[in-house]
């Protein structure tokens, strides 16, 4: 299957490469197809930002202009050889990507869109005003001819200059999006917090997507002066930025075929119908709106839908599922880092010292002291709003404490969630936070983020190292999926899983980061009693594998059955700590949380759960 696909694509690429030999219409081959080749690179780059990362750039025309002008000016003023121009244009594109991306990508929301639009206008101003450099509104016509090996590449043969690079750019994009980079982009788009707690640096990967995209756009720009042997400011307008977006959305995001089809269609459209020129913008705008709502996956999505109807598809990833079932995925699926074994069982692993956080006037957690010992299941209980989830958010770096400290093996830990994850603390979420559009196994592979050491070049060139890391991670991920008992669902999209399985998947993903300490925030909330039993077994299995478990839970029978130690919070303060038996007998706990049976007498230990304020399913 894979072989045939590759063979077909190669044949198609070679076939397209023969066009200039048989078809000689200069306008179509040189101008239109040349432009298509250049724009496809840009649209594929834009896909990294819009399709994978979920941000909007409406300033790619500005980046394109940077590349085109850099290349043209170097050829004209410095008589630089064309390949040098291409390299400089790419570097400049990347540089502007950093300048724009660093400020805008720290925030969620429309900030990137706003600042890229502004960037496009600044570039317009510079093109028009710096006459000594850009010749202002008259544009640059002094583009030298392209002659190599005695052949002129100015006519239809220009396609032989750009086409190979278009193919290379698309291969590069394919390499990026099928690697852990692509998964990180998507994970950050779907749930930034969960991605960060899996060790993915939001800033690094959002920026990588944008800078790669900007570099590709600068690269494509370098070729543009040779299309018309002229460049001028009007080409690089805001409308061009919007056109790139329309090409991308109309063709279909997250698909190379979509990038190509969308670009081809939008470029050819005005040539097909004359009347379109007057209403060009309105038609583009209408087309974009139509696509957004009626073809959310673009033309390619439509093709897939039609294709699926006529061509029976093999069961999703059946090979992978078989592999999962053949794995003897017992406790070995859970791995411990070498440093995790340094602490003897029963010694302090995590310590909170006078941990405090204030939100305005409210002290959510107040001078909390606590020790979690290695190898134990330690529960944190307390009424709603007593600061349990806030404590977990403080430990995982989502909140910064007002005062006090968190110590792991005696060392103070601070920093963003992705750093804390790297230290061996993993977590699940009270409100399930999965990467819904990704498959179960890909979710866990995001958890295995730390196991990927290959850099950008490894991914793009698909080195042995990158391939090995990828296949090792997949095997590990399948083993973990199997460990929590959902191996048969490995290739299903996470959002299609029933709620109980989603909670299990969160645990598998958390275990992917090889944690010494696993924080479970209400893992049994919303589960049926049967599922709670399953959850209990899994939590024990995780502990038996050597991972220390810190558990927030309202189901008292579960808490009392599996905990080695319990800490009780009320209004952000610790009111008790001890074994389950001690906690059940504690007056303050009974008053604050467990409740009395009405007579004022202490309830017997085995009935304590009956006093739980949370109704049980």
């Amino acid at each position, binding site marked *: 299957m894979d072989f045939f696909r590759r063979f077909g694509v190669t044949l198609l690429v070679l076939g397209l490469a023969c066009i200039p030999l048989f078809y000689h219409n200069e306008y179509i081959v040189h101008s239109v197809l040349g432009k298509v080749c250049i724009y496809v690179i840009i649209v594929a780059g834009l896909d990294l930002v819009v399709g994978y990362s979920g941000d909007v750039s409406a300033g790619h025309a500005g980046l394109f202009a940077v590349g085109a002008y850099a290349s043209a000016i170097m050829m004209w003023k410095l008589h630089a050889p064309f390949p040098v121009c291409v390299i400089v244009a790419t570097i400049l594109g990347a540089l502007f990507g950093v300048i724009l991306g660093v400020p805008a990508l720290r925030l969620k929301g429309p900030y990137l869109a706003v600042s890229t639009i502004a960037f496009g206008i600044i570039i317009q101003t510079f093109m028009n005003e710096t006459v000594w450099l850009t010749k202002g509104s008259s544009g640059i016509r002094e583009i030298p001819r392209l002659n190599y090996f005695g052949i002129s590449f100015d006519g239809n043969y220009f396609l032989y200059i750009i086409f190979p690079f278009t193919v290379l750019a698309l291969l590069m994009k394919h390499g990026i999006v099928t690697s852990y980079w692509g998964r990180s982009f998507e994970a950050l788009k779907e749930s930034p917090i969960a991605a960060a707690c899996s060790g993915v640096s939001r800033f690094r990967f959002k920026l990588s997507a944008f800078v790669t995209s900007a570099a590709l756009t600068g690269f494509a720009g370098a070729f543009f002066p040779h299309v018309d042997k002229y460049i001028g400011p009007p080409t690089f307008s805001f409308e061009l930025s919007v056109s790139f977006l329309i090409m991308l959305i109309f063709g279909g995001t997250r698909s190379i075929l979509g990038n190509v089809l969308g670009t081809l269609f939008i470029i050819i459209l005005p040539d097909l119908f004359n009347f379109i020129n007057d209403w060009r913008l309105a038609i583009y*705008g209408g087309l974009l709106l139509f696509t957004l709502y009626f073809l959310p996956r673009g033309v390619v999505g439509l093709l897939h839908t039609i294709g699926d109807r006529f061509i029976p598809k093999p069961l999703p990833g059946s090979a992978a599922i078989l592999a999962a079932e053949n794995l003897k995925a017992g406790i070995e699926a859970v791995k411990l880092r070498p440093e995790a074994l340094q602490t003897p069982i029963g010694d302090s692993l995590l310590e909170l010292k006078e941990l405090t956080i204030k939100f305005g006037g409210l002290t959510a957690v107040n001078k909390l002291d606590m020790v979690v010992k290695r190898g134990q299941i330690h529960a944190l209980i307390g009424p709603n709003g007593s600061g349990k989830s806030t404590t977990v958010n403080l430990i995982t770096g989502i909140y910064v404490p007002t005062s006090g400290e968190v110590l792991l093996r005696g060392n103070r830990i601070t920093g963003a969630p992705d750093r804390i994850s790297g230290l061996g603390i993993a977590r699940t979420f009270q409100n399930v936070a999965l990467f819904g559009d990704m498959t179960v196994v890909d979710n866990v592979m995001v958890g295995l983020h730390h196991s990927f050491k290959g850099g950008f070049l490894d991914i793009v060139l698909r080195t042995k190292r990158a391939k090995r890391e990828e296949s090792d991670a997949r095997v590990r991920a399948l083993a973990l999926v199997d460990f929590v008992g959902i191996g048969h669902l490995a290739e299903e999209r996470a959002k299609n899983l029933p709620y109980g399985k989603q909670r299990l998947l969160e645990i598998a993903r958390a275990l992917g980061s090889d944690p010494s300490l696993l924080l479970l925030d209400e893992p049994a909330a919303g589960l049926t009693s049967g599922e709670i039993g399953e959850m209990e077994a899994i939590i024990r299995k995780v502990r038996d594998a050597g991972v220390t478990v810190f558990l927030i839970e309202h189901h008292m029978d579960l808490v009392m059955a599996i905990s080695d130690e319990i800490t009780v919070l009320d209004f952000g303060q610790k009111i008790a700590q001890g074994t389950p038996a001690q906690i059940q007998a504690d007056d303050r706990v009974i008053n604050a949380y467990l409740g009395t049976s009405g007579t004022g007498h202490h309830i017997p230990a085995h009935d304590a759960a009956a006093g739980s304020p949370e109704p049980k399913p």
Partner: protein
Amino acid sequence: MNFSAELVQLLFSGVALGMVYALIAFGYNITFSTSRTLNFSQGDFLMLGAFVSLSILGRKMPAWHWWVLAVLAAAVVGAFLAVILQYVAIKPALRTGSDVSWILATISLGIVARNVAERVWGTDDYPITSPFGRDPWELFGGKLNINPPEVMIIVAAALVMVAFELFRRKSLLGKAVTAVAADKDAASLMGINVPVVIAFSFMVSCSIAAMGGVFVAPLTFVSSTMGALLGVKAYAVSVIGGLNSGLGVIAGGLILGLSEQLTARYLSTGYKDTPGFVLLIVILLVKPDGLFGKAAIKKV
């Protein structure tokens, strides 16, 4: 004219320009607070408002009451456009649950509006006269000249913003807007019809933009492309002032308006737009929540 008088006039023009930006940005902040979305085609709605006033006023000096009528008509057209915006762009986009959709949908509505205006009114620039006339008022015995439309802009923009702030604080619907901005779910549980409040906030926001078009028309020309740049500068003002701050936009608007006038006079007209956008990027780098915005606490 001496240097200081010229500077005062320059600053005054900057303030007037800044108030226009502040006014549009004020509209962005209203919808961003209630719906976490804003209209990326606000500048084009402003342009349509200006064309409404052109249709009503013609090019002769209009009488007072005709001008007031033009402002009201623009407000109504703005509210009507908001309904279209809601049904065509915002509501369907929010259903998809991604920021990408609403940003793209509102951008595409803007380019449609621009194209339609171009087909209806052509690509000409139409001058329009303010009801105060075009001769400058001479103050201090001719030492200082003040341009009447600039006075009108400052007064009108301030009136609109104050009126909405009063409405937000005093009226029940205004308080509902504040409640939805603070917490949608809680507001909904208190019996506030959240979709209606959001729709209302868009109507206010778009009306403000369309009225802004009438205010600014005597200073600029009326053309199909007049709004694009104004709209973008107003985003910059929103972000500089803080997208979740109420009146930070005024400070942001004044900073941008003044920097623009000063750059145009003392550096070069061509570069007048640059300092504001550079400032935008610097602010995002140094104080990402804006000069007056508060960092939001995210819940997990």
